C-alpha cells in the first residue's frame, strides 16, 4: 500500500483509510464534513436500493440488473470529484450512485428496469450517457465526448466507468490511445471488482495491474484501494484537475470486490470460494467508512438508524412513483429510432400501433 506522500503508483494501491477507520497521518481530505456525509448517505442508499431491487426482481417486478454491492466507495468516491451540471458521467451498468450524483433518479432507474425505455433517457442537464450493455463500447464515446466538449471551449471533465472484464476489449485500447493523443479530458475509472461474471481477474490478464497500461498510452495511471472512499476521491480529484487543466487523461484502477452476484441471473456459488467471499466481506467499504465516521463522531447508531429510515422512505417513494405508469405499447418500438423515419418504418409503425402514418 502506498501513502499520500508517495508518488502515484501502478503497483501498490493508494490507501488513505485504514481498515480500522483511521485516516493516513497527514492526509487532509478534500471532502468537508457535509460532503463526506453526503457520500456516506449515497453509499448507504446504494446498498439499501440494491437490496430492495433484488427483492423486486425476485418478485418478478424488475428485469435483470446488476447491483453495486461492494463497490460503493469506488463509485461514490470517484463521482464526488465531479461537479454536477458541469462534468459528465459515462457509465457501464453498475454505477448508479454516480448517475444519481449527476441528477439521474431512482425513479427513472426503476422505470427502466421495469420496462419503460424512457428510464434510460437522461433529462436535459443530467450529464450522463445511457447505460451501456456492450462492454467497453462506451469508452470511445467518452473520449469523443471529452474531445468534443473541449473543442467547444468547455473545461468539463468526463469520467468513464468500466470493469476488469471490459478492459480486455479492443475498444478499451483504442479509446485510451486516442485519449492520450488528443489529451482528452477524460478519467478512465476501471473498477477492478475481481470478476467478469465467473472469470477471475487472473484469467482476464497476466498483468500485475491494469493501471500500468496507462504508460503505454502516454498518460498517468494510478492504482487505488477501491474500498477506500478517500483514496478513490483523492485520485479522482487529481485526475479531474488534470483534465480541466488540459493535461489530458488519467487511468485509475480502483481495486474493489463484487460482493454480490454478477446480476440477478447469475449464481456465484458455482465459482466463488466461500472463504474468499468471507474475507472480502470483512473489507466492506461501508463498514470501513462507518468506523471512520463513528470515530470522528460524525455518526452514531441512532443517526444511522434515522438515516436508514429516511433512505427506506426515499426508496419507497421512488418505487411508488415508478409504478402504475402506462404500460409501454408497440409505439415504443419505433419512437426515437429515427428522427426522420423511412417510409417503410412509418408504415410498420402504423401497422403495429393502428395509428395513422
Amino acid at each position, binding site marked *: 500500500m502506498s501513502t499520500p506522500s508517495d508518488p502515484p503508483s501502478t503497483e501498490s494501491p493508494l490507501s488513505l483509510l485504514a481498515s480500522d477507520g483511521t485516516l493516513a497521518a497527514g492526509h487532509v481530505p478534500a471532502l468537508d464534513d457535509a460532503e463526506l456525509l453526503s457520500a456516506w448517505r449515497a453509499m448507504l442508499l446504494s446498498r439499501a436500493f440494491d437490496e430492495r431491487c433484488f427483492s423486486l426482481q425476485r418478485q418478478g417486478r424488475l428485469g*435483470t440488473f446488476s447491483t453495486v454491492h461492494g463497490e460503493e466507495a469506488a463509485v461514490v468516491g470517484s463521482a464526488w470529484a465531479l461537479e454536477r451540471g458541469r462534468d459528465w458521467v459515462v457509465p457501464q451498468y453498475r454505477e448508479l450512485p454516480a448517475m444519481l450524483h449527476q441528477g439521474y433518479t431512482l425513479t427513472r432507474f426503476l422505470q427502466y428496469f421495469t420496462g419503460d425505455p424512457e428510464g434510460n433517457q437522461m433529462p436535459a442537464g443530467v450529464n450522463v450517457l445511457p447505460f451501456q*450493455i456492450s462492454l467497453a463500447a462506451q469508452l470511445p464515446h467518452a473520449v469523443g465526448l471529452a474531445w468534443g466538449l473541449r473543442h467547444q471551449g468547455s473545461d468539463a471533465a468526463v469520467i468513464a466507468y468500466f470493469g476488469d472484464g471490459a478492459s480486455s476489449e*479492443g475498444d478499451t485500447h483504442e479509446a485510451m490511445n486516442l485519449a492520450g493523443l488528443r489529451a482528452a479530458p477524460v478519467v478512465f475509472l476501471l473498477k477492478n471488482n475481481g470478476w467478469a461474471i*465467473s472469470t477471475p481477474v487472473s484469467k482476464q490478464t497476466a498483468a500485475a495491474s491494469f493501471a500500468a497500461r496507462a504508460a503505454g498510452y502516454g498518460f498517468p495511471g494510478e492504482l487505488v484501494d477501491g474500498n477506500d472512499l478517500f483514496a478513490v476521491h483523492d485520485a479522482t480529484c487529481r485526475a479531474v484537475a488534470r483534465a480541466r487543466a488540459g493535461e489530458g487523461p488519467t487511468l485509475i484502477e480502483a481495486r474493489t470486490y463484487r460482493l454480490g452476484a454478477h446480476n440477478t441471473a447469475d449464481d456465484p456459488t458455482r*465459482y466463488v470460494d466461500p472463504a474468499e467471499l468471507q474475507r472480502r466481506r470483512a473489507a466492506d467499504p461501508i463498514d470501513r467508512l462507518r468506523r471512520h465516521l463513528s470515530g470522528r463522531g460524525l455518526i452514531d447508531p441512532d443517526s444511522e438508524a434515522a438515516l436508514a429510515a429516511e433512505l427506506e422512505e426515499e426508496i419507497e417513494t421512488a418505487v411508488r412513483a415508478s409504478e402504475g405508469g402506462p404500460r409501454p405499447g408497440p409505439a415504443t418500438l419505433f419512437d426515437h429510432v429515427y428522427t426522420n423515419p423511412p417510409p417503410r418504418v412509418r408504415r410498420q*409503425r402504423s401497422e403495429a400501433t393502428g395509428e395513422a402514418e
Partner: protein
Amino acid sequence: MAVLNMVEAIRSCLASEMQRDERIILLGQDIGVNGGVFRATEGLQERFGEDRVVDMPLAEGVIVGSAVGLACSGLVPIPELQFLGFGSQAFHQIEGQVARMGFRSQGRYPMPMVIRAPFGGNVRTPEMHSDAHEAKYANVAGLKIAMPATARDAKGLLSAAIRDPDPVLFCEPLRGYRLIRDEVPEEDFTVPLGLARMAREGDDLVIVAWSAAVVIAEKAAELAAAEGYSVAVLDLRTLVPLDSDALREATARCGRALVVHEATLTSGFGAEVVATIQEEAFWSLEAPIGRVTAPDTPYPIASVEQFYVPSVERVLAGIRAVMEA
C-alpha cells in the same frame, strides 16, 4: 430415445465430439467452471480438462481470432460467443478472416471451425442479447450458417458442422435452450448441412422459417387449419447452404409462401428466401410471398418484445393475407 431440451442436446453433442476427436478445443467466456451462462458446456471442463475447455478473457475479437490460429496449428476450435449480438465485436475476424483463410491461403489453412452463438427473443434479456443478425453473416461468402429448431437437429447439425471442413456459424435460440424439447438419439448421427426439414405438411401455403420461429410457425399453422387453410412449415435448418430444391418443391406444391423470422425486415434473410423462391418457382406462385418479421428497429426493451418478435397471431394474420391475396 431420450427427450432432451436444446441445451442438453448441445452439451451431449459437444461431449461426444470431444471424446471422438481430441483436436477439438472449446474456448469462450465463462464456459469452464461456470459451464457457460446457459450451461451448454457444463461439466466439460471437469471431464476434458482446462486445456480443452478454455475460459477466455472478455474479447470476442480474439476469441474468434485466436481460433483462426488454433485451426492453423491443426486443431478444431469451437469458439463460443456468449451472445450473437457480441459477434459484432468479432465481425472483422469472422467476415475478413475465418471466412477467407482457406481461400486466401489457397487451401493451405482451411478453417474447420464452429462458432457457437445464442440469440433470439422473448427471454427478457438486456439490450443486444436477443438480436437476430443471421442475414449479415449470410452475406459473408465462405461461411456456412446453421440455425436448428429442434433438439434433435441441434445435435445432428452440430456434429455435422464440427466434422465439416468449412467454418460454420452455429446459432442457438435462447428461448429453445429450455423450451424446445424433443427426442434425440443417443448414438452418433449427423444431419447434413443444406437439407431443409418439412416440419409440417400442407397444401395451401408453405411457411419458411428457421430456429425458434419454426415453433411459432407451427403453432400458427395449427390455428390456420381451424380456418380451413392447410399450411406446411419448412424449417430451413441451414441458411448457407440454402436448400433451394426444398423451396422450389414446397412452393410448387402450395403456390403460396410466407417467410417468418425474428430479424428485422429490410435485408433480412427472408428477402433471400423470397428472391430464391421467385427465381426457382415463379410460375407456381399464386400470390406475393409474404414476410412476417421484426420491424426495422433495434431489438427493444423486454417489456415490449412481444410486439417485436413475430407472434403466432402476426403469423396467422400473415397467412390470411397471403391466402387472401
